[in-house]
């Protein structure tokens, strides 16, 4: 009987517990059976979109498929990658050259697809290096970094790289103001000595080659994010800024004093006129441009020493400030180009400026003051509307193709959907947790493919199995085709994902490169057939012209190397078939392996320290006889007379 009594008590308790448990999880563990079919990409079939996500502090770019959330490539951009040899191989080292020397890492924030007529065209992807200011251009045929340009007179290159309608310019802004030109001054002289710059990088319409066209010297605020105008506002670019207080310490408090900061509106077509009139000042500034010569399979560094700077004082009409509450972060332009949305981290409303009202206010000289020759427009004269209750800490806004906007709210961890024109909030959905950027494919262009929105979250807490103190970052995919947003999928990301871009797969996939043609390989150390494979000594330099082919190296027995020699392995992959890379690694190498694509040549340097026999082998499983793909190097003492031999 006792047993029965026990059950009588425990069963209702369990039931109640189960009910409570279900209720407490109703937000984040609902019924996803319908969602599963929407993100299921059957084995062997392809995703609908390519998504490019910033790798944040990994310095790289990751490539995902949507809607599956499958990661299928990490592109090396600003950080060395021992997996491929990027930044370690002799050919790739120059990509990371800067005026501060060779920098093995950066913090990558905002990928941006190149555009034609304001629509992502799938030719290139730009991304900023925040710490040592740089912008990279990735070739979307090879999915490799094609070019990196350093931005001089900048610090914290956060507000970049955003493109104009036909990539006339990629824009960039300094988050941290500094003395320009650099000089040794007391930090407390901030207001007197510190300035910001807005940079305009021209791209060649055919090749994508970047060059620094001009910079605009601006007051020493923190320029945070940017977007170029489009449609009606083509010809303008917009930059958000905070710290108009010009604090140089404890910005958390000291830069949160003013009721309004600014969005800077720059008329770059006017800038071009002023440059033509010779209003630009040539200033000496050292910066690098590094590009990858795809025929030579070789990065080349070019040192530049001059930049043209425009001062708004000499150029009336070049730039205006739009007052914007309160420490604005993202600045986003709707597909028509009329609306300028700025998310104020500390603001309770989301202000939307009108481009046409701005033009009218400029015409009427509706100014409330000026800073360093830059007129400040009257808030009431430029504002189109305010979105009430846009969530706490609204940061960024993307757009669909039906006149709706989607704003991320960091503090309240949600996406808020609202209507352009009526400013009415239509829907809101929680994100897990602390969303930063959000992304709709084409959602910052003239033509959004508004099927999904991706939330890029800063914190995951309990969303995945725990992995010690460091947890994964994550993205979440939502369906936005209906009236209500619907959570479909969580998936982990590399580094910290900041911004992202996505484009329909059918635009990119047909262009994807499969091999490098060996006939066209102009690397100075290429070996075009096994007959040319050899070893040459030049003083204490040894050059090994090594070929790879399934499943052997040529040569694979090398003798006559001495301690103290500097050995260059120039590895050419003779394969001409898709998906047949070979790897190369030698025992005791202090750098990395090489991963060599079909038809490519890569070089790694090895400094043998001790006598003995050193095996080398192929690291990338290439065939049934991959385990047989190995060789030996004999290293003799520095004074020995072992003859140079190879087979």
């Amino acid at each position, binding site marked *: 009987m006792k047993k029965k009594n026990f059950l009588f008590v425990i069963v209702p308790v369990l039931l109640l517990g189960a009910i409570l448990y279900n209720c407490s999880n109703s937000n984040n563990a609902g019924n996803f059976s319908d969602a599963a079919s929407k993100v299921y990409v059957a084995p062997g079939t392809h995703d609908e979109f390519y998504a490019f996500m910033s790798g944040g502090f990994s310095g790289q770019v990751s490539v995902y498929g949507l809607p599956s959330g499958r990661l299928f490539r990490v592109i090396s951009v600003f950080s060395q990658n021992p997996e491929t040899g990027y930044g370690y191989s002799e050919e790739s080292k120059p990509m990371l050259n800067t005026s501060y020397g060779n920098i093995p890492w950066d913090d990558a924030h905002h990928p941006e697809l190149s555009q034609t007529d304001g629509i992502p065209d799938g030719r290139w992807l730009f991304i900023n290096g925040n710490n040592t200011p740089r912008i990279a251009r990735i070739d979307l045929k090879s999915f490799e970094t094609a070019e990196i340009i350093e931005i001089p007179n900048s610090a914290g290159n956060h507000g970049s790289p955003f493109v104009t309608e036909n990539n006339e310019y990629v824009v960039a802004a300094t988050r941290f103001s500094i003395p320009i030109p650099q000089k040794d001054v007391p930090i407390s002289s901030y207001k007197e000595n510190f300035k910001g710059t807005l940079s305009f990088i021209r791209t060649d319409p055919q090749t994508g080659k970047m060059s620094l066209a001009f910079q605009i010297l601006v007051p020493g605020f923190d320029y945070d994010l940017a977007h170029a105008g489009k449609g009606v506002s083509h010809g303008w670019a917009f930059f958000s800024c905070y710290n108009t207080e010009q604090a140089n310490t404890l910005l958390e408090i000291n830069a949160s004093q003013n009721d309004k900061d600014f969005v800077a509106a720059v008329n770059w077509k006017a800038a071009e006129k002023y440059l033509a009139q010779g209003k630009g000042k040539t200033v000496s500034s050292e910066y690098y441009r590094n590009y990858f010569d795809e025929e030579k399979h070789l990065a080349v560094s070019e040192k530049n020493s001059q930049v043209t700077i425009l001062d708004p004082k000499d150029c009336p009409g070049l730039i205006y400030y739009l007052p914007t509450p309160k420490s604005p972060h993202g600045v986003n332009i709707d597909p028509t180009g009329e609306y300028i949305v700025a998310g104020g981290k500390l603001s309770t409303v989301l202000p939307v400026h009108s481009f046409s009202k701005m033009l009218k206010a400029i015409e009427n000289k509706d100014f409330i003051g000026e800073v360093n020759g830059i007129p400040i427009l009257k808030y009431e004269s430029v504002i189109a509307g305010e979105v009430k209750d846009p969530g706490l800490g609204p940061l960024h806004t993307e757009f669909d193709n039906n006149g709706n906007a989607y704003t991320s709210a960091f503090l309240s961890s949600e996406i808020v959907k609202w209507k352009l024109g009526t400013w009415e909030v239509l829907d809101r959905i929680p994100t897990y947790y602390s969303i930063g950027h959000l992304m709709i494919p084409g959602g910052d262009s003239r033509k959004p493919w508004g099927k999904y929105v991706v939330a890029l979250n800063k914190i995951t807490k309990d969303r995945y199995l725990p992995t010690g103190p460091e947890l994964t970052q994550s993205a979440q995919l939502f369906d936005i085709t209906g009236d209500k947003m619907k959570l479909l999928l969580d998936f982990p990301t590399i580094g910290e994902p900041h911004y992202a871009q996505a484009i329909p797969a059918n635009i990119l996939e047909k262009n994807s490169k499969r*091999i490098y*043609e*060996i*006939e066209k390989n102009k690397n100075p150390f290429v070996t*075009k*057939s*096994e*007959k040319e494979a050899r070893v040459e000594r030049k003083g204490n330099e040894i050059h090994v012209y090594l*070929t790879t*082919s*399934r*499943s*052997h190296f*040529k040569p694979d027995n090398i003798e006559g190397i001495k301690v103290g020699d500097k050995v260059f392995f120039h590895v050419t992959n*003779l*394969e*001409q*078939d898709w998906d*047949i890379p070979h790897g190369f690694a030698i025992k005791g190498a202090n750098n990395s392996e090489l991963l060599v694509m079909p038809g490519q040549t890569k070089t790694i340097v090895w400094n043998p320290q001790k006598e003995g026999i050193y095996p080398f082998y192929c690291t990338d499983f290439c*065939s*049934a*006889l991959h385990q047989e793909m190995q060789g030996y190097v004999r290293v003799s003492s520095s004074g020995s007379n072992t003859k140079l031999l190879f087979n």
Partner: protein
Amino acid sequence: MKKLFFITAVSILLFGACGENKSGADVETAKKEKMAKIFGLTVFELDNGIGPIKEKLNLGPIDSKIVETGRKLFDAKCSQCHKLDERYTGPAQRDLIKRRSPEYIMNMILNPVEMVARHPEAKKMFAQYPTQMPFQNVTQDDARMMLEYFRSLIK
């Protein structure tokens, strides 16, 4: 389905066996047709491989002008796996033209993956040389010149 296949196979055999004044060549043809059917190929494909070469080539005397280009192509694209007189990654090639039809050689160069997947002879070779022969990014003209080089190797 199995039954139908059996009946068809038996009738083919019977038809072949009962045919009047059947010449040796006809018997050979019937045998080939049967083989081809088993592998899902045409008789032409059985003899000449699967790929862009779909009919017999009209080969004249060896064209010495293209032999040298063919040799260079072979050196650049094939020699990392094929030697003339020794087994390497793939089989020795000096007697290739004696072993295979010219069309088969070109199809194997131009369409090796499908050949290994579907052709009984290529499958046999794959079992002996366990590395998938790759397509080496050559044109049909390139393959034709390499064929001329192989023809020139036999005096």
